[in-house]
């Protein structure tokens, strides 16, 4: 089955992983800007990182017939540095016309601080000003519930936000209903240690249905598994879900959400395979 991974950090992965993803059925992915494992010291570091996301990674992915899309921001962890964050936010528009940019993300909260909240609101303003879609990171472990509620509070208090154009990621059993009931898209992140297993993601699909729901692997530099979505596909098949129902969550929903971005130009996999052969 072909699928789309809507949240995977390919800068952390080897080219072998692109090959494995392609062999497993991945035809497109989107890579939000995130924390590199260390705090970057200047706006120039982010400029280089955004060039990597908009120039280098799309080419690396294309070698395996995978279409690469991306989201730009300064992540929640580094947003604690308000001065640097404002420099990065001011620089982001330089990249908004790049063909693989879908919007602003992954913005969010980490430890639910005042500085993180301030920069989240300033990212929101940037997205609204440029009519961009938003991809959101919610905190981990004990901070997730509080942080998700704070994020939804900020989003819902601004009438300019189009909820159907916002994806709230890393939802789990205690946050998914809040996100879906408020009219946003929800992403379940399949992760070996924190976040969600394929089995629990399948439970949530069965409980809440496939409407505005996606799954992703995160696939970052931590202990993650870039082929986690095929694991979910296998779990859903094992439970007797139809191929059409599975395809909706792992392929059609991401395409439908991304299609709201004016730069999203999706090439059908068959056409790309022609190019690979050529």
């Amino acid at each position, binding site marked *: 089955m072909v699928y789309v991974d809507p949240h995977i950090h390919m800068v952390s992965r080897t080219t072998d992983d692109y090959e494995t993803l392609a062999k497993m059925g991945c035809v497109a992915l989107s890579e939000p800007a995130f924390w590199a494992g260390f705090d970057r010291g200047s706006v120039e570091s982010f400029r280089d990182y955004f060039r990597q996301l908009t120039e280098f990674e799309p080419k690396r992915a294309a070698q395996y017939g995978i279409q690469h899309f991306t989201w730009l921001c300064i992540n929640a962890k580094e947003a604690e540095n308000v001065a640097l964050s404002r420099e990065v936010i001011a620089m982001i528009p330089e990249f908004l016309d790049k063909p693989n940019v879908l919007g602003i993300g992954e913005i969010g909260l980490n430890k639910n601080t005042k500085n993180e909240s301030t920069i989240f609101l300033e990212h929101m303003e940037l997205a609204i000003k440029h009519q961009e879609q938003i991809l959101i990171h919610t905190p981990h472990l004990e901070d997730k*519930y509080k942080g998700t509620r704070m994020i939804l509070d900020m989003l819902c208090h601004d009438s300019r936000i189009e909820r159907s154009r916002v994806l709230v990621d890393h939802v789990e059993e205690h946050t998914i209903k809040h996100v879906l009931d408020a009219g946003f898209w929800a992403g379940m992140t399949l992760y070996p240690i924190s976040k969600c297993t394929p089995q629990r993601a399948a439970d949530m699909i069965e409980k809440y249905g496939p409407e505005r729901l996606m799954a992703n692997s995160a696939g970052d530099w931590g202990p993650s598994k870039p082929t986690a979505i095929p694991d979910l596909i296998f779990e859903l098949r094992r439970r*007797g879900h139809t191929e059409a129902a599975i395809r909706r969550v792992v392929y059609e929903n991401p395409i439908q959400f991304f299609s709201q971005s004016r730069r999203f130009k999706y090439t059908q996999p068959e056409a790309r395979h022609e190019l690979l052969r050529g």
Partner: protein
Amino acid sequence: MSRSPSEVLTQEFLQTRAKILEIAAFYDRLGDAYGLDRTQLELLRKGCEILNDDRSDKAARVQLLFSREYDENWRQQFGI
């Protein structure tokens, strides 16, 4: 699509047995809890209670047990 309770039990009995065994082995490794962080131990005890009670939504309730509380007045506290 949803499996019947009978199917769930049949398909997942062994995996669940293994997970219970892991928790039991953890408590064996912990041994005498004297002097340890009572807050963490209490959270684990309450988590096990949720597994055994007769209410639904166990995963969401375990998640909330291990979560910080949300204060609707957070904006005023931050002055945002």
